[in-house]
């Protein structure tokens, strides 16, 4: 069967069996039609392999399509392949075990106060119109940050190019008053990330996940939202957050002062352990948010009922989370649990985890990790 014919049948099936808006159906159809143009008008369904799909995704990226559009297109094709498989038009789903990392790593700067930049006399280009800061880097090119660094910009201790290239030489390292205060916290978060299985670290890197510690909370994190043209949550919504995931920056930011207050009086070992648990939760959350489907999220509340008592008590539903947020919370909590047990139990899955929870988890996060 030609791809065109399969597309027509698939779209008909979508219209009849799925409660999708006409707009969504049109979007799916458009995505598959784009793929159809890529493989040629007379292409047959059978021969498509992962390499062909990958070439298509690469062509989309090369054409400058936004990461979000590439992800949507990949998701549309994934659904199409699942349907082909169910309709017995394909023998194997080429997407099984594959992921598309369409997100580009967005390098966060070590955000500095304006006067520090001036003092450093770094050759910098401030593009007022574009609202971005450009700094020369080793490669001879420029590093641009789309965020607006105003005179009152927040200080963020964050990962980024400043750690690895000439920018570091241009800026006084950590000469930002109290800016070294949360270095230890950031270091411990990164140590926790380094302890993750290599496959998961690679996935996080593909997603472009970064971490940071904001010391002037909530203003600092609100500035980060503004830097990617997102409306920041209110003070009230942020003030009691220990950490927040910024989807636009693919970054998990920790509330430095709150984390410090929460860990006061703990032994070094306990504090470090606590930071690692929360970091693992947040990395699991990042993986789930970027890899789970809407369909999976809809199953969250049902899965919550299958969790063990101790784990269920940590997910405050319905007061603390929305219906569609529960799934990612479950995955993140299970992730932190499994990572914390590697040292004692290896990659085994504890018996008290319900098989459906384990299944849902494995659909989102490869377990046991292959590397």
């Amino acid at each position, binding site marked *: 069967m030609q791809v065109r014919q399969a597309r027509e049948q698939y779209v008909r099936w979508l219209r009849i069996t799925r409660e999708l808006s006409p707009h969504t159906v049109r979007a799916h159809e458009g995505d598959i039609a784009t793929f159809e143009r890529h493989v040629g008008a007379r292409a047959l369904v059978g021969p498509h392999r992962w390499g062909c799909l990958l070439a298509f995704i690469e062509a989309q990226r090369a054409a400058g399509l936004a990461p979000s559009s590439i992800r949507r297109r990949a998701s549309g094709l994934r659904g199409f392949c699942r349907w082909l498989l169910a309709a017995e038009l394909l023998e194997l789903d080429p997407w099984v075990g594959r992921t598309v990392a369409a997100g580009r790593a967005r390098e966060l700067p070590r955000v500095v106060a304006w006067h520090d930049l001036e003092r450093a006399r770094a050759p910098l280009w401030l593009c007022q119109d574009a609202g971005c800061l450009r700094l020369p880097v080793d490669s001879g090119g420029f590093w641009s940050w789309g965020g607006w660094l105003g005179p009152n910009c927040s200080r963020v201790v964050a990962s980024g190019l400043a750690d690895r290239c000439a920018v570091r030489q241009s800026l006084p390292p950590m000469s930002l008053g109290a800016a070294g205060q949360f270095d230890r916290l950031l270091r411990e978060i990164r140590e926790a990330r380094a302890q993750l299985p290599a496959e998961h670290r690679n996935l996080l890197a593909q997603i472009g996940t970064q971490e940071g510690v904001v010391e002037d909370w909530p203003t600092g994190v609100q500035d980060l939202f503004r830097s990617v043209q997102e409306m920041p949550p209110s003070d009230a919504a942020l003030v009691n957050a*220990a950490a927040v995931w910024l989807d636009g920056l693919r970054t998990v930011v920790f509330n430095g002062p709150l984390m410090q207050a929460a860990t006061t009086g703990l032994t070094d070992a306990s504090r470090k352990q606590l930071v690692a648990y929360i970091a693992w939760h947040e990395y699991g959350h990042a993986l789930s948010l970027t890899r789970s489907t809407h369909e999976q999220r809809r199953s969250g509340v049902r899965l919550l009922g299958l969790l*063990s008592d101790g784990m269920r008590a940590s997910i405050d539903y319905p007061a603390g989370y929305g219906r569609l947020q529960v799934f990612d919370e479950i995955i993140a909590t299970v992730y932190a649990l499994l990572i914390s047990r590697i040292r004692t139990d290896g990659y085994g899955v*504890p018996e008290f985890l319900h098989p459906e929870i384990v299944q849902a988890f494995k659909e989102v996060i490869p377990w046991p990790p292959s590397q």
Partner: protein
Amino acid sequence: MAPEPMREPQTAAFPATKIAPFLRAVVDPEGKGDLTPEQAAAIQQVEANVRRRDEPK
């Protein structure tokens, strides 16, 4: 050039009040009270710290 309108944020927060229950979920996932004295003390300390932070100053 006029700035682009701001998009609605997609946030996912880890609230301070979740820290202690979450710690308990990791070290005692079945809720049987299987905690070492050190773990129990650490969780109590965190609970107290978060409570203190919430108290009006």
